């Protein structure tokens, strides 16, 4: 019976998350929903990172960089590509039947040029006679995901020979280069100003006869939740298949795994590609939901958060990492309120991160499997030890009889 508890808990959580937007109705509805969506976003990052670091043993500190690749690819796609009904004559454009694919020229962010790109000029000339459609959001997210996978493939191939500390340093460096490049190439990425992105459902959406406007939190909530579920199912499928066994063998001893016939190259690269694609997809969706993507979202703090969430949840179990991420995101938001002790203001916006860091260190030091994973294990596998002892006793008794 006890081993059913995690499944029941899982189903309960699932039901809770599905019902939540319709049940909850307090005044801070939008705020709580926003935290939920962000929590799901971090849950995707933390669980895919736990697959990469906890299962495969590849301690990559560039995960947030791949998230950024996804977000920026999506943003640039929606920013620079349009479909028009007539040629602009100014932009780079390709004709497909009666529509033209227009690639807008990058113009940077100086105030005088902000509205001066070639498409805007053409629209001014047309005076509203030609229809201009932006690219579908989903295509952008797909492209962002693919781009994340491509970069994951390249980095995965580059780090094949590197282990442990070298891998961590290289991936950290990769994320830093990426951030520097995005901040520096102002003409294309708009630097610190960030790139604006359309909402997930720019024209609103109707689900089950109910209309949701583009600022409504319910559609992005379910999109992010669905993405989290998809990622978790893929991870669950992978970890229970040969793949999971192989990457764990890789983690324990790469040479031994290779000697036993595991194609270490293939699985190392594959695990990179899969997890980075998840991070990139999360980045694309989050970018569309928030409406802007800036280089600040690639800060090391974000990576620290992902690492800490996965470690506190339990780095060797992606479910625990996801739950840990959701709980910690909530805890961090709830701890935001500053308070006074004897006229001395305690600025909780910073102290909560200190507490969080200490919690991370203590978890690592005293509970290496994290705080959530042991609970799941207690219920799911707690009986295993007892059964093993019983089996051994039975075997020894049988031996005595013989």
């Amino acid at each position, binding site marked *: 019976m006890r081993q059913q508890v995690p499944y029941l808990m899982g189903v309960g959580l699932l039901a809770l998350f599905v019902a939540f937007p319709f049940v909850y109705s307090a005044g801070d509805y939008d705020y709580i929903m926003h935290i939920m969506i962000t929590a799901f976003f971090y849950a995707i990052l933390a669980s895919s990172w736990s697959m990469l*670091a906890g299962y495969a*043993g590849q*301690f990559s500190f560039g995960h947030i960089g791949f998230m950024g690749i996804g977000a920026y690819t999506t943003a640039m796609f929606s920013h620079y590509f349009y479909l028009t009904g007539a040629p602009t004559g100014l932009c780079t454009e390709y004709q497909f039947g009666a529509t033209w694919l227009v690639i807008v020229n990058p113009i940077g962010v100086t105030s005088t040029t902000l509205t001066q790109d070639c498409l805007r000029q053409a629209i001014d000339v047309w005076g509203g006679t030609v229809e201009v459609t932006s690219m579908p959001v989903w295509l952008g997210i797909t492209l962002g995901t693919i781009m994340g996978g491509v970069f994951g493939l390249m980095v995965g191939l*580059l780090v094949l*020979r*590197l*282990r*442990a*500390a*070298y*891998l*961590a*340093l*290289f991936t*950290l*460096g*990769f994320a*830093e*280069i990426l*951030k*520097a*490049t995005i*901040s*520096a*190439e102002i003409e294309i990425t708009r*630097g610190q100003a960030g790139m604006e992105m359309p909402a997930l459902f720019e024209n609103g959406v109707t689900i089950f006869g109910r209309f949701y406007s583009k600022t409504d939190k319910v559609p992005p909530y379910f999109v992010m939740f669905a993405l989290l579920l998809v990622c978790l199912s893929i991870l669950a499928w992978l970890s229970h298949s040969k793949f999971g066994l192989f990457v764990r063998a890789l*983690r324990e001893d790469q040479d031994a795994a290779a000697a036993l016939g595991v194609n270490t190259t293939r699985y190392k690269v594959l695990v990179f590609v899969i997890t980075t694609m998840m991070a990139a997809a999360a980045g694309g969706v989050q970018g569309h939901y928030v409406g802007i993507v800036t280089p600040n979202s690639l800060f*090391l*703090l974000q990576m*620290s958060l992902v*690492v*800490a969430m996965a*470690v506190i949840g339990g780095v060797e179990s992606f479910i625990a990492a996801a739950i840990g991420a959701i709980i910690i995101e909530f805890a961090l938001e709830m701890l935001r309120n500053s308070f006074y002790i004897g006229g001395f203001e305690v*600025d909780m916006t*910073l*102290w909560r*991160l*200190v507490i*969080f*860091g*200490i919690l*991370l*260190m203590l978890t*690592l*030091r005293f509970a*290496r499997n994290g705080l959530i994973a042991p609970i799941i294990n207690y219920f799911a596998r707690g009986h295993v030890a007892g059964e093993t002892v019983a089996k051994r006793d039975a075997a020894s008794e049988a031996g005595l009889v013989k």
Partner: protein
Amino acid sequence: MEFPDIFWGVIAWMILWGVVGSIAIRRRYLQHDLDTSNAGFVGATVGAATGPVGLIPLWLNTPELGGRLVVLPAIVAVLLVVGAFAIADPSNNCVASGSFVASQFTNGLIIGIIYGFMALGLTLIFSILGIVSFSHGEFYMIGGMLVYYITAVWFPGINPLLAIAMACAAVFALGAAFERLFLTPMYQGKIDRPVEYGILITFGLAFTLQYFVQATAGANPVKVQRFFDFPKIRLPSTEDPWLIKTSRGNLELFDTVSISNPRFTAAVACIMVLLALLYFLHRTWTGKALRAVSQDREAAAIAGINPDRMNMLAFAMGAMIAALAGSLLVQAFSWLPQVGNIPAMRSFVIVVLGGLGSLPGAFLGGIIVGLVEAAGTGCIPDAQKAASYIPAYGMVVLTLTLLLRPTGLFGRRFAGGTHGKV
């Protein structure tokens, strides 16, 4: 300004033959059952420097790849890039103005010495404990912060040397305490993967310290007055073509190279401490014990050295070195809780370039990175972009090192990063 195609053409040509060389030569050496540890690197540099002209004899003869063959092609390749740059952009400051080059070179050298010194702490920790400390930048930041608080807030008017000593002592104690509390289970075999544990726990420490300082000290940049004024000198005499002229905050050489006082004093102090450190490591019992542990833990333990205590000493000393670099540089830069991030990244680059665990490698690597950064900021035509890319220059060096020669310049064979288990 746009670069002419010739520059990109030369670069593309060099990359093409570099890649071909690194793959083909490595294969060739592997097939002939020869030592391949340098083959990829030499193949890449020979390919980049000479193209097929040099690769074919190398491929045919497969000579032993010793000192000269490693160094010469690398120098030629660098010169080629410089030459192509000079032809492509003759009006650039880096090409046209000799005094600008001299000034950039000197400043790169000076800042490189400081970088190298800081990386020394990281490499010391790695050589004894076998972990890369991700909290190195935070120790650097705390060193500077403490000096600011001691000199400006707690004890105004205190001798800066005393303040530096106090800051170093505090960080030394912090490092020792952290090592005792959090790193000890690593050597007791309680942890499956000590390297990863070391990375994560120091990462957690970095996170905690950074926000702790931000919460207590605030996020406003602080700055310390320069510690010492230069005496007013004008050599050889008062006549006009002088060699050295100093004002209180600046030192000028030959009327062209200008070095600011804080950087100069920091670099001199770094060199002095480095000499003291070398004396400590090579002439005292404790220093020799440290080096012995870094070479072979078990053998050192048999010889009567307590490796665990050496671990504590090494971590605390590494942290103190970072703090010392920070407390010397707090007079040169304005100080923020986040100020440690970039030097930390730089230190990682330097130790990998020099070879993880190698002390001379760290110092030489620091100078190389300092020069590369000076060249990068000075020579890229668009000044704003050049400044934004500062963190990336070192990373390019890091990537090239990891691809071509993962053991670094003077690396011992720690490529796995697992200390003790080669």
